[in-house]
């Protein structure tokens, strides 16, 4: 009897370890709340990349315990292997590529063999294949009445350094299996989505004498000049309706945070400090911002009202907290845990809840930077460097599920999704 209990406890722990890529210090009993699902590849030519993307999508959703075995089957019938009878659902899929990509999916209820969902997805651009998978998994998730995970369908935009004074801006899916250069030539930095539909993005160009902010439509190529500034110019955040921008700029050689109203073309200086104020993010009701400032002698996270002068310190640990993001009353920030001038330092990402004043680390190993919330605030993206490798990490704040995707290529300058 005792052996059986130990076996069951070990079984439960192994579930947690299987999916724990980056340990969090808070343990939550959530395994038993997820749906058991298996994937059956019914393609004429099995593709391990397709299978892995399916696995990633189901895992990061936080709603599924997905069988990691790559089963082969036939989509034309509803037969379910006897060894999968302990699952709740089976997803059969058939992927094919000619001039376009096509994905057929069929969700079966294991208990009665009924088809719950069946759909065919296609896209003309072969390289955009990952988006078909993301779309199908987000719809399977919806059909089972789980909280929306449509953030997996979104583009990630990021800039990388290609040479001194040269960079490239890329579009990718969240797994980085799809990648495309969208801006090349010269130094183009700090890409930031301009609208929720991801049709336009802002970026800073150094082509002219002064840094200049442009808005680019990613489908038509229409490019609009927004503003220029001496010193530096960054679009740090965009209001939810897209009408206002938080900019870090230095018209008087002093970096401060400004709000630019695109409707009235008026500019409001939000911070006034003879040091460094950067990284403004709309917080709470968008009448406040959080930002990074060195007003205590080191970079740390602060909050202030856009229309009042009072400033609140938000973080009370660490001596170098130099990057942050906000969603509602949640703040994420990177904190340097070591102080070495001549080699890579250890950075960790922390989550702070303003309502509970609870702070907890989301990462524990390596150098973790560029923390970014998903569009619904449920998932945190970050860039991890560990043992000489660079990865993009995701942590689901509801399920504590973490995933890492290898990131090959040049040094990342900035990232948004």
């Amino acid at each position, binding site marked *: 009897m005792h052996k059986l209990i130990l076996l069951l406890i070990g079984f439960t722990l192994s579930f947690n370890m299987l999916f724990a890529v980056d340990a969090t210090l808070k343990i939550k009993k959530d395994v038993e709340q997820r749906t058991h699902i298996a994937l059956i590849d019914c393609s004429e030519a099995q593709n391990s990349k397709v299978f892995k993307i399916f696995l990633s999508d189901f895992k990061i959703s936080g709603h599924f315990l997905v069988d990691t075995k790559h089963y082969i089957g036939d989509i034309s019938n509803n037969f379910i292997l006897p060894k999968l009878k302990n699952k709740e659902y089976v997803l059969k899929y058939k992927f094919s590529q000619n001039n376009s990509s096509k994905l057929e999916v069929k969700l079966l209820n294991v208990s009665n063999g009924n088809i719950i969902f069946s759909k065919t997805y296609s896209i003309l651009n072969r390289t955009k294949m990952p988006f078909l998978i993301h779309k199908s998994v987000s719809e399977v998730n919806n059909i089972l009445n789980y909280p929306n995970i449509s953030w997996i369908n979104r583009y990630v935009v990021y800039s990388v*350094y290609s040479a001194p*004074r040269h960079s490239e801006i890329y579009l990718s899916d969240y797994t980085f299996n799809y990648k495309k250069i969208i801006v090349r030539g010269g130094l183009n930095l700090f890409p930031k989505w301009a609208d929720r539909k991801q049709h336009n993005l802002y970026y800073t160009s150094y082509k002219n004498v002064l840094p200049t902010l442009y808005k680019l439509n990613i489908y038509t190529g229409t490019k609009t000049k927004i503003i220029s500034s001496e010193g530096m110019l960054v679009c740090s955040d965009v209001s939810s309706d897209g009408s206002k921008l938080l900019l870090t700029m230095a018209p008087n050689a002093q970096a401060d945070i400004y709000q630019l109203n695109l409707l009235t073309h008026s500019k409001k200086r939000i911070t006034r400090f003879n040091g460094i104020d950067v990284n403004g993010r709309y917080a709470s009701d968008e009448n406040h911002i959080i930002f990074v400032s060195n007003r205590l002698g080191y970079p740390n996270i602060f909050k202030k009202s856009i229309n009042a002068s009072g400033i609140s310190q938000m973080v009370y640990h660490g001596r170098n907290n130099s990057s942050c993001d906000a969603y509602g009353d949640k703040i994420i920030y990177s904190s340097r845990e070591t102080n070495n001038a001549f080699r890579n330092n250890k950075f960790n990402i922390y989550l702070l809840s303003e309502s509970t004043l609870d702070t907890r680390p989301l990462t524990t190993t390596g150098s973790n930077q560029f923390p970014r919330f998903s569009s619904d605030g449920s998932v945190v993206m970050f860039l991890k460097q560990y043992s000489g490798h660079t990865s993009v990490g995701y942590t689901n704040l509801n399920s504590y599920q973490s995933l890492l995707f290898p990131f090959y290529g040049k040094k990342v300058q900035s990232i948004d999704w």
Partner: protein
Amino acid sequence: MKNGLLITILSLLFVGCSHKVPALNNNNNNISDANEISPDTVSIDDHNYDDSNNMKNNNILSSNVMNNSSDGFRSIYFAFDKYNISSNMQSNMSTNIKVAKDSSHKIKLEGNCDEFGTDEYNYALGLKRAKAVKDEMVSQSIAPAKMIIISFGESNPVCKESTNSCYERNRRVDIHLLK
């Protein structure tokens, strides 16, 4: 007692199995594309995108010389995470002030950082370094309107080796005439 404990553990493991099964909605059995991302996106070369004047590249000196400025100016170097001009840079500053006074052109001050900072903060640090040099020159009677400052953050390294001397060479302000 033992049976009760076993039942409790089994319940914890498999309580999620009763998730409500939705009915098949025939309206979903259609053909669809991934609509929002379906259209092809552009790929532009920003450097050649319009007729605006391109920045002149003034990186004409060899990177193994402890100077990346041009037109007779000397680069100013900074300590890790600092933006105050140290006493051992005063000789270079004296040279820069003399060259600035002798020139009728505008002067461009470019702040740079090593690779260890984070995105926006690193660009602001580079800007503070450039501003420190500008303020010193203003204090020596160089007109503020004669100078413009720009931060290149960590985007403009003169070397990429993982050595202390290389990191030190990247924490600098370069000065050029804007001709």
